């Protein structure tokens, strides 16, 4: 079936089987392998992307369902001038990633989280990323990374980026 999808502002016309999952289309047809497949069962959130601006798990959506829609993946988050997104910067500065497998999903989810709630409390951040698993269990620094991005995006000086050992 022929579909047309906008991915990170580039339009693609692709021929996919109806059973092709959106995550497979992203990774295999478009070779954008920053979107990861973790559990493949809607649990872990590693495959989180934005579909028309909403964070969703691309392992549980058919590629044909993205026909005519806009998809954003981690590859499109950096600015055209090569400037890291505040969330990317936050993860880098705050040791928000260990192995890095969950990071693209964490960042894509957090983009929508900060859009809906620009100044979330720690509880709201933890609730907001409750659909994303980090099996290195580096949650404290992930939360700090999101707090850093929130401050940056509001034009406030982010708190210290000293790593947190709890």
């Amino acid at each position, binding site marked *: *079936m022929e579909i047309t999808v906008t991915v990170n502002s580039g339009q693609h016309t692709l021929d996919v*089987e*109806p*059973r*092709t*999952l959106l995550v*497979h289309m992203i990774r295999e047809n478009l070779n954008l392998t920053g979107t990861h497949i973790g559990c*493949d*069962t*809607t*649990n872990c*959130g590693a495959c*989180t992307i934005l579909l028309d601006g*909403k*964070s*969703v*798990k691309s392992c*549980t*959506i*058919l590629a*044909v*369902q993205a*026909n005519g829609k806009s998809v954003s993946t981690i590859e499109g988050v950096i600015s055209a001038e090569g400037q890291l997104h505040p969330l990317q910067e936050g993860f880098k500065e705050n040791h928000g990633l260990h192995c890095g497998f969950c990071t693209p999903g964490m960042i894509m*989810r957090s983009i*929508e*989280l900060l859009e809906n709630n620009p100044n979330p409390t720690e509880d709201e951040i933890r*609730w*907001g990323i*409750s*659909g*994303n698993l980090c099996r290195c269990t580096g949650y404290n620094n992930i939360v700090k990374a999101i707090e850093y991005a929130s401050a940056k995006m509001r034009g406030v000086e982010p708190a210290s980026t000293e790593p947190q050992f709890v």
Partner: protein
Amino acid sequence: MIAQSFKYESPGTLAEAISMLNKYGEDAKVLSGGHSLIPMMKLRFANPEWLIDINGIPGLAYIKEEGGIMKIGALNREADIEHSDLLKKQFPIFGDVTKQIADPQVRNRGTIGGNLAHGDAANDHPAVMLALRATVIATGSNGERSIPIDEFFFGFYMTALQHGEILTEIQIPIPPARTGSAYHKLERKVGDYATAGVAVQLTLDKNGICKAAGIGLTNVNATPLRASRSETALIGKPITDETITEAAKYASEDCSPSSDLRGSEEYKRAMVAVLVKRMIHKAVERISG
């Protein structure tokens, strides 16, 4: 995991979708949020030949109050329900339940209609709809049909929806003043199905006598269960420790949970009793508050 091959249609109108369902017969399934159906297809528990995707049909995602009835379009995402002040003002229970359904990304896709039409006693909206005494509207080639929620759930993944019908709306009577509602499910982690879940809606008169009670139970029975004896135990009486304990006892006796990884039958019955008590207290607090 990839599903078995199927054919895909995305009709632009409800009439078109219904005519496709009639044309393809029992080999067709309706695709809404897809967060129950697609996982089942990936695991090959479900192998429909046709998927009729209703996501592109406009006009199925409203929330409006009309003539004392709250009307909720079936295609509302859980996130829409979670953030609807109109709905949560009348029914604070929706704030409780949507927060506990899966996780934020899933709530961006999963729909309230799909949550009911899937016919799974482990889903959370069925118990809520029992407590709120909802009516389900099914639309087929002969028009709309109203199905009281007590006649909707038939068995494991079985509902009163007939072949060729699509669940299009949920109607909930707006309760009188001095009504409160609450839901909680005990879950091991975010996104888990309930070990046990309890939905309560109570109406009290000005003397504190219970005028109406609705109590629904999640995942402790083959079908979503109304705790009828518990409701009867409250109606006409003041809400005291004694009546609450009686209602909790009946619910724990009348459900039939099975022992599994989430706990033994005995444990689940005990948790039903605890949750019934807590949700009655919370509903009452919301009336006074």
